[in-house]
């Protein structure tokens, strides 16, 4: 102890103390913090239990300890498993930061944790369930009908082929090229963020699948060459100036420089 006291004015002392403090804090956190769920696929009761723990660790700050909602975030009672699966598997929830709307990010929960959270929220009240693989199988839909439905219901925000578009006050309708078929279905079913709900009376499950088929068809690319983002005349005009006029003026300068 005497040796320690003698060295308390040593130059390295603050650094050592800081490191020790960090170690203690980190150690305490590791011991006390709720451990991430590691349960195997088990009975629904266990899923709900684990889901509740995950919820309280990751979501309760905004949505309330019992998902009853708060001034910052809506109640999740009755939103159903589909909504949780959509929000969590696309990384929108837990929300990275406040803003006009929750942005996509790499998912924070693995598929199993997502399922547990979904099971917990579904247990709070009846809501739309996660669609089956058959409901979202693009091969089973009719893209012509999907095109028709997409044009009347979705294109005004998401662009005619799902390239995305702007909404008011910094919100946006995201591009749909990389969204999984299941997530597209869930989005229609639950209406996340600014999106309206397209329930089964509005678009029945077959019609939802037709829309998915149409959107998947758009991923094959354009018959005429580079799609230029499928953004319409503005990007075409930009490229006409950059590529067309750019090359032509370059050539004109070259011709003008010849012989003179």
């Amino acid at each position, binding site marked *: 102890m005497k040796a320690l006291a003698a060295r308390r004015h040593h130059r390295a002392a603050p650094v050592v103390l800081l490191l020790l403090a960090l170690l203690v804090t980190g150690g305490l956190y590791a011991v006390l913090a709720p451990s991430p769920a590691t349960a195997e696929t088990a009975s629904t009761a266990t899923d709900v239990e684990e889901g509740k723990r995950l919820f309280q660790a990751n979501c309760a700050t905004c949505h309330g300890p019992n998902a009853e909602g708060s001034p910052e975030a809506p109640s999740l009672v009755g939103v159903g498993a589909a909504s949780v699966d959509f929000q969590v598997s696309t990384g929108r929830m837990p929300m990275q930061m406040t803003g006009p709307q929750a942005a996509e990010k790499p998912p924070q929960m693995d598929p199993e944790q997502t399922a547990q959270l979904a099971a917990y929220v579904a247990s709070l009240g009846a809501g739309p369930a996660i669609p089956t693989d058959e409901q979202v199988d693009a091969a089973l839909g009719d893209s012509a009908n999907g095109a028709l439905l997409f044009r009347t219901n979705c294109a005004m925000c998401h662009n005619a082929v799902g390239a995305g578009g702007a909404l008011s006050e910094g919100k946006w309708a995201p591009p749909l090229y990389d969204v999984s078929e299941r997530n597209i279905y869930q989005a229609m079913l639950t209406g996340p963020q600014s999106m309206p709900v397209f329930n089964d009376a509005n678009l029945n499950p077959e019609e939802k699948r037709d829309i998915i088929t149409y959107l998947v068809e758009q991923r094959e690319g354009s018959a005429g060459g580079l799609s230029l983002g499928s953004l319409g005349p503005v990007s075409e005009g930009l490229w*006409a100036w950059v590529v067309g006029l750019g090359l032509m003026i370059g050539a004109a300068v070259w011709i003008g420089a010849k012989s003179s």
Partner: protein
Amino acid sequence: MSTDTSPSSTVEPPTTPAGKAADYLDQRTGVGVAVKEFARKVFPDHWSFMLGEMALFSFVVLLLTGVFLTMFFDPSMALIEYHGAGPESMQGQLMSVAFASTLDLSFEVRGGLLMRQIHHWAALVFMASIVVHMMRVFFTGAFRKPREINWLVGTVLMILGLAAGFSGYSLPDDVLSGNGLRITDGVVKSIPVIGSYTSYFLFGGEFPGEHIIPRLFTVHILLVPALILVLIGVHLFLMVLHKHTQYPGGGRTDKNVVGYPLFPVYIAKMGGNFFIVFGILALMGATMSINNVWNYGPYDPSPVGAGAQPDWYMLFLEGSLRLMPGYATEWVIFGYTLSLNVLIPAVVIPGLLFTFLFVYPFIEARVTGDKREHHVLDRPRNVPARTGLGVAFLTAFIILALAGSNDLIATHFGMSLNQITWAFRILFFAGPVFAYWVTKRICLGLQRKDRELVLHGHETGRIVRFANGEYIEVHRPLDDQERWLRVNYDAHRPLEIEPATDARGVKRPGYQKDKQWQKLSRFFFEDRVEPVTPAELAAAHAHGEHDEIEAAPRSPELVSGTENADREQ
């Protein structure tokens, strides 16, 4: 040579096949005279003189591909159910024959999609090269006497280009172009008194009706191209008649043209440029998809897609409409609605922009009081007010075009659509004024730099120390070409007008009008940098071996207004 005295035998008969053919033609048509005249016509050399050519050649490409498309396109609005080689998503859909034939010519006709894409890219490039050509003509003052009429012809050609583009864009009868037609219908209806009648006249009844596509087809393939062809003829005829303008430089005056003969130099350059333009357009048509109408689907008045915009040359109109606040701008007067929210952005604003283009040459002629012919171009810096006005005009146009793309700016730069719209509303008024001011200051600065260079020469970086310890930097005088370029320009002064009353104190009629013109003239020429006069140059040279710049309290070369009008010539 034979000793025969008959003049015909002094010319040896041609021996080559080409020569024989030329002789055959010449004996029957006398074309040799024209060839001789044109082959020796001299054109000055500069890359920017090829911008108009680019527009001409894109138009040739438009004609060639357009003829091909006409053979397969069917401009009918009859409804059919589509079953064909088009995309899966179009099968079984109800659509007009016009839309179906667009799908067929894209997916069933060999090379059809390529031709359609080349045609559309050529249209975008046609308008773009017209705009760049106009910019060149404007900023170099090539519209001055005797070319004012040709400027008007060119401006009408530009508007006809807009008409051709818009009518063609609407032909496939897809959702996107149908939205454009709906806006057109709204704009027409916003015109007071005649609006609704005109709309019914154009569409043959209530929008969309069954007549608009066939009518647009006639406009697109007959009326507008014929007018464009005629006006291109007039445009080129006037160009040949006036002879081409040339950039300033030693030996170039308003009475000569310095350059190369049309044959062989310019024939080769023009021919080469044609193939380059065609090649670039073909490359674009082959690799970049444009206007995939099957993405938008057949026209139906109810849906509209995000990112619905017109082609770039119409974007300024779209932007103007998007910027206009919708509240408190629709007035009902005695039961009649006056839609100022459409009338102002879609009729008044474009009207003002086009009017500026039409009247500018005459305004400038009036405020300079200059009635001479000009064949040597201005350097843009030497007419600061004109250059500033041109940049201000472009700024307004570009801000409107960007406002027409505000949704894409919002998504691609992560901004709020509402804030962008407000920013553009303010910028539409403040931007051009700011652009004018900055451009004018830059021009004046460049002129002063020129002046300084002429008076003092180039800095060489060589420092010499005299025996008395003084250091100077040696300046190398400009060579004759450099100096010629920098001193040969007109620095117009504001108009001087007759006094308000004559010698007997009687009021002079027309004085008020003259005063207004003088005011405008002052706006143009109050701030100016006079070119270096020979006397000043001699003074600067005599003034010493060392080229020091005296520190004057007030820049002596920037004369302001009439206070210095009696300055030495």
